[in-house]
């Protein structure tokens, strides 16, 4: 599970470099995210531009990461590909997460708030 991070003063971006987060990789994703988000950044942006496929296990792992961060930190998503967007929409998780069309849009939004 390859994840790349970019840090700014108040924003930690995690870019998923894999084409899928599925039942075979969900636990690994969750563990890597727990390690990477052990910083004090109040806002975490998870960029899914390269992720072409997400199943219910992958979605569950993203929700678990959100819960690990606790209520005082913000977690937002960016760059959902069509099948990933479908999973969020059908499970109504698109109403739980703020979703930005691109990583740049997520950063611009963070800078403005």
């Amino acid at each position, binding site marked *: 599970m390859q994840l790349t991070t970019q840090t700014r003063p108040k924003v930690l971006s995690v870019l998923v470099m894999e084409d899928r987060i599925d039942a*075979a990789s969900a636990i690994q994703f969750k563990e890597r995210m727990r390690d990477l988000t052990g910083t004090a950044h109040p806002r975490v942006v998870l960029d899914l531009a390269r992720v072409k*496929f997400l*199943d*219910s296990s992958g979605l*569950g792992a993203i929700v678990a990461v959100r819960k690990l961060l606790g209520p005082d930190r913000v977690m937002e998503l960016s760059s959902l590909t069509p099948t990933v967007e*479908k999973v969020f929409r059908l499970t109504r998780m698109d109403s739980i997460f703020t979703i930005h069309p691109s990583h740049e849009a997520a950063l611009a939004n963070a800078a403005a708030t």
Partner: protein
Amino acid sequence: MPPRPDAAQQLVFTADPSSVRAALVRLLSEAPVHDLGEDDRGTVELVLAEVLNNVAEHAYAGGSGPVEVGLSAIPNGLACRIIDRGLAMPEGALPEGRLSATGTVPPDDLPEGGFGWHLIRSLTADLCYARKAGQNRLSFVIPLGGQT
């Protein structure tokens, strides 16, 4: 007239998470799924992933065993049949896949599971389950071509 030989596909493999992934790659790279549009291929991959991972995780409950996938193209959809020799569905029926309330729940109360059957039920029609001769037999249609 017999059906076109490429309009159907059958695959038997051992159900565990990594072989499910490999099986999906194969099913998507061959007819009839390969010939679909990208949106439809994504839908098919999602439904088959949910069904096959359920077989690996629940029917074979952490072990493994054979699963047979049969796909055939029908007008405006894909007819699917999945057969395994694992444990029967609890109470002999398919889960309802009702989503937990989300609304304004605090992050700590968000559900981390229960999405799978909701996705399957949202994306399929004519879902039918039978337990016969030690086998789970699941059949359904994935309606396709509604969007691109």
